[in-house]
């Protein structure tokens, strides 16, 4: 096992500090609101542009908007901007779909050295995998219930 470099140790120390509760709850809530709201505001702008440019209804513009936002989330994670945003935005940066993209790209980049298969491709789904699994399982249960029982 390779010894941790000074840089890695420093990064780990920062991680420990970052994971400790340090800011008052009210401040966290305000930042989550502002960052999350701002990301949705950008999403609305993207949606409006797509609707106008392609002549789509709000429903039709949904998937392409999500696609653009996911791409942007992945890009800004690659550029190292998104993780900084997440540090003060908390769930405001994690909960939007851009945070889902961040959860895919960040570990994929981190484990680059372990190769394309078991590094990048496998680690992409460390967080995104559980999200997709639960979304599918719960949606199938809900879908089954509303088809055979409800409505």
């Amino acid at each position: 096992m390779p010894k941790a470099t000074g840089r890695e140790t420093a990064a780990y120390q920062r991680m420990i500090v970052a994971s400790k509760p340090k800011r008052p709850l009210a401040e966290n809530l305000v930042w989550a609101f502002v960052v999350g709201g701002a990301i949705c505001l950008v999403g609305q702008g993207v949606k409006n542009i797509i609707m106008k440019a392609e002549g789509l209804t709000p429903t039709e513009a949904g998937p392409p908007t999500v696609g653009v936002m996911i791409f942007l989330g992945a890009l800004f994670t690659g550029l190292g901007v998104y993780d900084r945003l997440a540090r003060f935005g908390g769930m405001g940066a994690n909960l939007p779909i851009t945070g889902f993209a961040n959860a895919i790209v960040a570990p994929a980049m981190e484990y680059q050295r372990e190769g394309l298969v078991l590094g990048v491709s496998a680690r992409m789904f460390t967080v995104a995998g559980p999200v997709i699994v639960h979304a599918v399982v719960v949606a199938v249960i809900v879908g089954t219930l509303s088809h055979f029982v409800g409505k």
Partner: protein
Amino acid sequence: MMDFALAFVVGGLMCMLAQLALDLTEMNPAMLMVVFVSLGAVASGLGLYAPLVEIAGAGASIPLPAFGHALVEGIGQDVDQYGPLGILSGGLRATAVGLTVAILSGYLMAIVFTPKG
């Protein structure tokens, strides 16, 4: 202008709620993402999420519960069109664009960029 204000406020409030759960419970961000995506699917099944998207636009369709909602809506559409088998096809069909972009751009970014520090 109103659509931007609603997107900001509703999207912000959802994130604030998630932050509250993060700070007050033992759950970590990954678990909360799972919880919220599941809540979105349940809210969709109860007919609550579609009206929220109607009102708040991207404020409801960008936060993660929208992913659960999209799966449930897709299932509903495919069941209407193809019958009960739609339960197995509709979810991923409706979310195909997002998932494909996520996988493609994730792969691309991880190859192009190297982590700093």
